[in-house]
């Protein structure tokens, strides 16, 4: 028996978190993400979980990392200003390989910007916001259903690869109400406890990169530090080889698995001369624009990036191999545009429909850009 609900995006996110096994949420009120916290404050006590309103977003990120080492799947939700505050601890989660989920319901920015208006201005913040080299995973939902699905997927990926995972939503998807269907047989990835305490190396440079993760209090007596550490977890900050092996493994465990992590959806790409690339809420307009273009006989297709990070380079290259024009549609002045341009500029002209101000780009705005390119 599946369940059908008519709910708001932020509520769907909270429900997805609970379904994925999240039993600890720490957060700080911020528009337009607050309903995620409010829903979890109401729901977590019903399922043996804990909700904490922290004193700020720095503390929220710290608390969920602590919660994760305490053996509980943990999440926070915020918007751009809060994500900025969380960045140092997000870097800590990367180097300590702590599974956490960070939901960002993006709003107009920079700074306090437009709290109640939609934007996608944090995409590069998700990619590069903390200092140092790391490979983030980010999912961008385009519907309320996807906000639920991608939150579940974010927890699964966080556990699978022991990394922080971002759900990069936006105010449109966060606040719209749609029908969603919750299936009974959703795949949930549980954490793996190491088998033996004898000679256990918590940060071993193993082939596939991801070690099982003990929780505190199980007798493993491990040391977890944000300093560059050896395979035992002990600080070893002056040895170039230790740092190289550690950071390379942290990046490789994501980069070597992009086939499994990256996801796109596409339509009409086979014979398309013009391909629209988008993610999040604007995909809704993109689908309509492509449909209209096809109805008029123009060879227009689209690619929807489910996972902006790691950038689905291989999938995009395959799908766009024969296109001569690429149009990136996003609610910023060009962020994923740079990534698309890096990947496709040798074979196609890459253009931008970048809309800021808080409103979605309309199908007609996208079509008018395509028409200017020659309409094909």
């Amino acid at each position, binding site marked *: 028996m599946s369940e059908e609900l008519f709910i708001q995006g932020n509520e769907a996110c909270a429900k997805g978190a609970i379904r994925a096994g999240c039993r600890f949420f720490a957060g700080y009120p911020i528009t337009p993400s607050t309903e995620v916290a409010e829903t979890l404050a109401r729901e977590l*006590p019903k*399922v043996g979980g804990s*909700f*904490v309103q922290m004193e700020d977003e720095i503390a929220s990120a710290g608390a*969920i990392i602590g919660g994760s080492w305490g053996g*509980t799947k943990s999440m926070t939700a915020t918007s751009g200003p809060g994500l900025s505050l969380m960045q140092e601890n997000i870097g800590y989660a990367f180097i300590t390989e702590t599974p956490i989920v960070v939901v960002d319901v993006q709003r107009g920015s920079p700074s306090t910007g437009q709290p109640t208006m939609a934007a996608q201005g944090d995409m590069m913040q998700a990619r590069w916001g903390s200092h140092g080299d790391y490979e983030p995973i980010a999912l961008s939902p385009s519907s309320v259903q996807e906000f639920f699905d991608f939150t579940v997927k974010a927890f699964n990926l966080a556990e699978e690869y022991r990394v922080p995972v971002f759900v990069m939503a936006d105010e449109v998807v966060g606040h719209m109400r749609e029908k969603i269907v919750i299936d009974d047989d959703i795949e949930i990835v549980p954490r793996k406890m190491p088998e033996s305490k004898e000679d256990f190396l918590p940060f071993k440079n193993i082939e596939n990169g991801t070690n099982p993760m003990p929780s505190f209090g199980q007798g493993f007596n491990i040391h977890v530090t944000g300093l560059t550490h050896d395979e035992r977890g002990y600080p070893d900050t002056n040895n170039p080889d230790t740092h190289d092996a550690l950071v390379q493994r942290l990046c490789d465990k994501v980069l070597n698995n992009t086939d499994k992590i990256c996801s796109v959806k596409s339509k009409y790409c086979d014979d398309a001369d013009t391909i629209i690339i988008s993610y999040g809420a604007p995909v809704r307009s993109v689908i309509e624009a492509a449909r209209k273009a096809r109805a008029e006989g123009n060879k227009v297709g689209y690619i929807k990036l489910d996972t902006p990070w790691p950038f689905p380079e291989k999938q995009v290259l395959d799908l766009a191999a024969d296109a001569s024009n690429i149009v990136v549609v996003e609610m910023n002045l060009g962020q994923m545009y740079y990534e698309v341009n890096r990947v496709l500029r040798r074979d196609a002209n890459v253009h931008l429909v970048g809309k800021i101000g808080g409103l979605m780009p309309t199908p007609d705005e996208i079509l008018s850009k395509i028409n200017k390119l020659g309409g094909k």
Partner: protein
Amino acid sequence: MSDGNKFTPYMRKDRLPHIFCPGCGNGTIMSAFLKAMEKAEMDFENIAMVSGIGCSSRIPGYMDCDSLHTTHGRALSFATGLKTANKDLDVVVFTGDGDCASIGGNHLIHAARRNINLTVICINNNIYGMTGGQISPTSPKGSYGTTAPYGNQDNPFNLAELVAAAGATYSARWTTIQIESLVMAIKDGLKNPGFSFIEVVTQCPTYYGRKNKLRTPTAMAVTLKMNTVFKDAASRMRQKDLEGKIVVGEFANTQKAEFTENIERISEEKFGKKTLINSAYEEEL
């Protein structure tokens, strides 16, 4: 290296020797902690330690227990998450004056306000040691540091009183000179089922001493001893006579509902649910 002493079994021997300077108070405080833990009849196996950044925050790295060495100032927020996720753990936080009173000041007062069951040992050496001797929020007025070459003009925080005012159910201050009192205070803090804060004023001969004409550990120890005033005596002294003095004693010792107990009580009373522990490992919840 010798075979060690009765506390050696609690140490990560493969991490020794430690990084602390000769004459540093951290060793004295580690030993006071372990004595207090035995006196409180705590199960060492059940202790998890959390720390921030700084000399004091390196202590958990030498203890053979689960330890989380976090970002600068944020130890208490990580500890809040850890304790909330698994309230069966005895969570001990090692921090310093720069770590918990400057960059982490907000987390300190909020953790105290929540009365979450953590035992916080704040090693107050009045200076930033790890970065080389800059003044801290507890540096006495007029003291010297590399960032106060003409003498510190700022007023220091009174941490034990600040934390008591913020709502901690146990708060005390001692120095590395009153070892027995310090041990008893840590013991009381460990046994207190709420937020416990033990400020230990200690010597940093390497940086504080060098900058303030107290180069030897002995000179620093003598100064600490001479500046100490017991709380009862201090209450009879005039404010201006207390300037530069270290008032020692208990500043809070009371009982209030504890944070994680409150969370579980709501789950149990309203929904008949106990707070789950280690649920991340379950496929079905």
